[in-house]
């Protein structure tokens, strides 16, 4: 979901202090943000407070807003951050030991399985380059599945990569053979591996591409 020109224009108007643009942004996004928060905090008044904090957070962060980032995703990440704060205050989310954790995961991407933190330490710039390359490759493969109506293959890859399911679990869910899952996985990851190689990214960056293929 790339950033839209409409959203960028709206943000530009808000950055110039246009109250109507701010009103428009609130009208467009508050409903989905409230639904997002209420799925975790059913109390309406508390949920509305969290959304209110998210909007204030957006305005406060506008000077650093990255126009390449889709506005809706950015708003959801701020809302998630504010929601996490509220859930911690309510005692529903644990506070993580600060020695190990510099952040509580708000808005950043996560690690792969069984990789020690010390094994890969890279600069933010390097990580962004890797991410950009992989986003383009993944988006290309997903679009290929959509264009050819390969819905089961797309579902399968989403289960394996996004939810971390095993081949066996995915096969059971999709009611296909494990061999079919393995074939889809091979096809899908082969092109990703090529992309990773073309970008001179070391294999250790995304070991998922080399597991069980």
């Amino acid at each position, binding site marked *: 979901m790339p950033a839209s020109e409409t959203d960028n224009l709206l943000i530009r108007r808000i950055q110039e202090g246009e109250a109507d643009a701010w009103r428009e942004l609130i009208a467009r996004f508050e409903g989905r943000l409230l639904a997002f928060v209420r799925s975790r905090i059913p109390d309406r008044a508390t949920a509305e407070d969290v959304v209110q904090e998210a909007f204030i957070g957006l305005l406060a962060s506008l000077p650093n807003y990255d126009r390449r980032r889709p506005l809706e995703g950015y708003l959801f990440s701020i809302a998630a951050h504010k929601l996490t704060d509220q859930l911690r205050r309510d005692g529903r989310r644990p506070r993580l030991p600060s020695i190990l954790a510099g952040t509580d995961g708000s808005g950043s991407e*996560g690690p792969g399985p069984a990789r020690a933190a010390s094994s890969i330490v890279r600069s933010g710039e390097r990580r962004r380059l890797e991410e950009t390359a992989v986003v383009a490759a*993944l988006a290309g493969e997903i679009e290929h599945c959509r264009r050819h109506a390969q819905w089961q293959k797309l579902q399968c890859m989403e289960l394996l990569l996004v939810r971390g399911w095993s081949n066996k679990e995915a096969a059971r869910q999709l009611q296909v053979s494990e061999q079919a899952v393995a074939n889809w996985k091979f096809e899908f990851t082969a092109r990703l591996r090529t992309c990773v190689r073309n970008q001179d990214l070391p294999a250790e960056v995304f070991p998922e591409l080399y597991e069980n293929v």
Partner: protein
Amino acid sequence: MSQPLRTADLEAYLDEALAAEEMARIEQAIRRQPQLVAQLAALCAQRDAGVHSLGAIWRRHRLSCPTREQLGSFLLGALDDGLTGYVGFHLDVIGCRYCQANLADLKNRQVEQLEAAETRRRRYFQSSAGLLRRKC
């Protein structure tokens, strides 16, 4: 517990990205198994070190999420069978919280009194508009 807790689940938990019932399941597990807190902290430390995964990037960039227009058509039953099946899967099996929120919003807009939404929007606006930059 019906499903095992996977690393991908814990990563998504950190980002508030799982379906609400999955989030609750993890919170229950944390209460029963305090060692999960250390596991979550270790995941955060890996992030700080620059480690990332394909799944987390896919989810964060919402690479397979249907558009809001497609979700609207899904509600109206106006998508073709293949896409309808996929959208349903993405919402229910993957449990994409962002798409679930969009769908819930679209449903609410059909039934909610305009006045209630306007009151809420006015409140958000009034509490934040003071932060808008003054026009030169």
